[in-house]
C-alpha cells in the first residue's frame, strides 16, 4: 500500500526529471545525482576541513578562528622539531610521535586481524546455517554498544579483579595480572577490544558482498572439481574484492581513528603505550589542561595527509581490481 504510494510519488518525481534529462543529457543527470550529496558534503565536511587547515596556521588559546593569531607553519615546525626522528623522546612534541608510532603498530596489526576475523565470520554466516539471523545478530551485537560501554565492560573483564583473572585462576590456577597495566597485554587488549567492537560492522559488509556473488559461478566451479579452499581463493576472494576494498579502507581509517573504546579501556596507559593519535589530538584540542588547538589541528592535518597517501595507493590497487572484476 505504502509501496504503491511511494511508487506514485517516484513516478511524479520522474516527470520533471525527464525534462531535466532532456535538457542536460545523461551527463547532466550524473551531476544531478551527485548534487545533493556533494552539497551537504561540501558544507559540512569540506568547509570545516578547510577551516581546520587554517586553524593549523594559527596560535593562541582562543577557540574561534577570528580570535586567533596567524603563525604560519610554526605549529608544523614544532611538531617536526626532533633531534632524532627515530626516537620520539627527542622531539619537542614527544607525545605526538609516541602516539604516531603506537598508532602505526596498532593499525597494521588490528586491520590485518580484523579483516581476517571479519572474513571468516562472514564466510561462516554465509553458509546455510540454522538460525542464521540469530548468529548474524550475535556477531553484530557489539556494534550496537556505545564505545564507552564497550570500553567499560572490557575494563571490568580485564582489570586485576576482573572476570578474566577469576576465570584463569579457577581454570588454570594462573596468578592474576592486571592486563591493563602491562605494556604488551594492554596494547593487545586495545586491539582485541576494538576488533570485538567493530568486527560485526565489517562482517556485515562482507556478507552483503558474498551474497552478491552469482550462485552459478560456484556451481561452475563445483563442476570444475574445485575444493573448498581453492573456491575461496580463486572465486570468492576475487569476486569479493570490491567489498573487501571497502572493508580495507574503512577498517584502516577507523583503526587510525581509534579512540573512544581504547581511551575508556586503558586511557592511553600504561604510561603512554596505548596512547593513539586521536587521543593526542583530542587532548590537545579539547581536554587537556595543556590545550593547544592550533597544534591539534596541525597534527590532524598531518595525519590526514598520511592517510590520503595510503588511500591513494589503495585506490590505485582497487582500480586494477575493478578492471579485473568487470564482466
Amino acid at each position, binding site marked *: 500500500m505504502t509501496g504503491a504510494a511511494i511508487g506514485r510519488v517516484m513516478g511524479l518525481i520522474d516527470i520533471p526529471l525527464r525534462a531535466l534529462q532532456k535538457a542536460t543529457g545523461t551527463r547532466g543527470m550524473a551531476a544531478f545525482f551527485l548534487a545533493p550529496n556533494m552539497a551537504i558534503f561540501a558544507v*559540512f565536511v*569540506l568547509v570545516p576541513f578547510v577551516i581546520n587547515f587554517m586553524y593549523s596556521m594559527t596560535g593562541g588559546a582562543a577557540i574561534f578562528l577570528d580570535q586567533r593569531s596567524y603563525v604560519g607553519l610554526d605549529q608544523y615546525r614544532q611538531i617536526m622539531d626532533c633531534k632524532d626522528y627515530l626516537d620520539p623522546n627527542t622531539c619537542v612534541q614527544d607525545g605526538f610521535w609516541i602516539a604516531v608510532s603506537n598508532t602505526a603498530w596498532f593499525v597494521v596489526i588490528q586491520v590485518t586481524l580484523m579483516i581476517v576475523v571479519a572474513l571468516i565470520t562472514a564466510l561462516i554466516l554465509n553458509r546455510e546455517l540454522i538460525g542464521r539471523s540469530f548468529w548474524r545478530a550475535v556477531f553484530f551485537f557489539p556494534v550496537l554498544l556505545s564505545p564507552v560501554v564497550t570500553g567499560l565492560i572490557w575494563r571490568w573483564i580485564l582489570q586485576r579483579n576482573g572476570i578474566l583473572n577469576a576465570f584463569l585462576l579457577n581454570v588454570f590456577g594462573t596468578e592474576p595480572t592486571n592486563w591493563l597495566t602491562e605494556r604488551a597485554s594492554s596494547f593487545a587488549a586495545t586491539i582485541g577490544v576494538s576488533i570485538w567492537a567493530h568486527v560485526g560492522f565489517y562482517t556485515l559488509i562482507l556478507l552483503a558482498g558474498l551474497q552478491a556473488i552469482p550462485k552459478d559461478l560456484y556451481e561452475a566451479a563445483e563442476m570444475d572439481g574445485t575444493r573448498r579452499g581453492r573456491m575461496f581463493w580463486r572465486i570468492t576472494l576475487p569476486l569479493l574484492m570490491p*567489498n573487501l576494498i571497502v572493508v580495507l579502507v574503512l577498517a584502516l581509517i577507523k583503526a587510525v581513528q581509534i579512540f573512544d573504546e581504547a581511551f575508556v579501556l586503558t586511557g592511553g596507559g600504561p604510561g603512554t603505550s596505548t596512547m593513539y593519535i586521536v587521543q593526542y589530538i583530542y587532548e590537545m584540542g579539547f581536554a587537556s589542561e595543556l590545550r593547544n588547538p592550533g597544534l591539534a589541528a596541525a597534527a*590532524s592535518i598531518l595525519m590526514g595527509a598520511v592517510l590520503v597517501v595510503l588511500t591513494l595507493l589503495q585506490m590505485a590497487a582497487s582500480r586494477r581490481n575493478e578492471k579485473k572484476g568487470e564482466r
Partner: protein
Amino acid sequence: MAHVLTFLTRRRGGSRWHWSDIATWVWLFGGLFIIFGPAVWLGLSSFKTPAALAEFPPALLPYISQTVAVEGYDKPLPIFTVTLPDGKKAELAEVRRIGIMAQMVDPKNPGTIIKVNIKDRTPVQKVSFETSNYTQPFLHFDFLRYLWNSVFVTTMATIITLAINSMAAFALSKYQFTGKNLILLLIVATLMVPLGVIMVPLYSVVSKLGLLDNLWGVILPTVATPTGVFLLRQYMLTIPDELIDAARMDKASEWQIYWRIVMPLSAPALAVLAIFSVVWRWNDFLWPLIVLSRSSLYTLQVGLNVYSGQLNVQWHYILAMTVVTMIPVVLVFVFLQRFITRGIAATGLK
C-alpha cells in the same frame, strides 16, 4: 531435543563431516561466548546495585544481601552465615558491627546477642534484580521526549542518508565523467578525519547556519557520509551494466533506472547502510552533545550522559539505560538483516 541434535549435526551438502563444519561450529560458539558473553553480562549488570557494580571480583548475577525483619528492631537486619566457635554453621542477623566484632542475633531468638568475628561470617545473598535502575531514570528523566528526538533524528538521517548516498554512489559507479576520480578521492580522503578533529570548525559552520539547538543541526552534517557513498558505490559496481542498458532501451529515464533497477538490486548494501546509519545516529553522542544544549532537544544518548559527573559516574543508570536504548536498534537490525540475502543481479543474464 531431537531438534537440537539435527541442528547441531547439520552440515553442508553430503553426509560426511568436513573439517569446515566443525570449524564453523567452533567459531560460532566461540563467537557466542566471546562476543555475546560480555553483552549478556552487561545486561545482567544493569540490574546490579551501585555497590554490587563496584564489587571485586564482579559476580555474574546481580546479588543483594538478604535481610530479615527481627522483632525488636525497627529495620530489617542483614543475615549472615556464621561459623560458630564450635564449627557449626548458623544463619544469624547482624545488629551492628564494632570493629572486627559483629553483634548478631538469631532471628528466631532475638533476645540474646552473639558476638562473632567478622572473618567468620559471610553474607547470605540472593539474586535480585535492581529494577529501580530502570524505573528511576524514567521518573526524573524526560524519557519520552528524548526517545522522540532520537527517533526523529535517526529516521530522518537514515532516510536522507540512504537517498543521497545511493544517488551519489549510482553516479559514481555507473557513469563516466571527468572529475569522477577526483570526487571519489575527496570523499575517501575526508573519511579520514575524525569528527573530533573538525568539531570546532564544524560547530562554527553549524552555528553560522543557525542550526544550533535544532535537530537538523544534528541530522544534516552526518548524512553525507563518505562511508555510505563508498560502500554503495563498490556494491553497485557488481550490478551488470547490461541491465541498465536494457532499461535504457525500455525508455527508462535515468531516474527510473536509479529507482527501479539499481536501488532494488542494491538492497543488500542498502540494508547494510541502513543498519549502520540507524546504529550510528542512534548512538551518536559527541556531535548532538555539542549542537544541542537544551534538554528539550536531547537525544537519548545525550540525555543519558547526565549520569557522568566530574568525580563520579552513575554506572547503574547508564548500564540500564544503555540496555533500554539498545532494544530499538536490535529490532531494526533483526528487521533489516533479512534484506541481506542472496543477490540476484546476475540471474537476469545469460
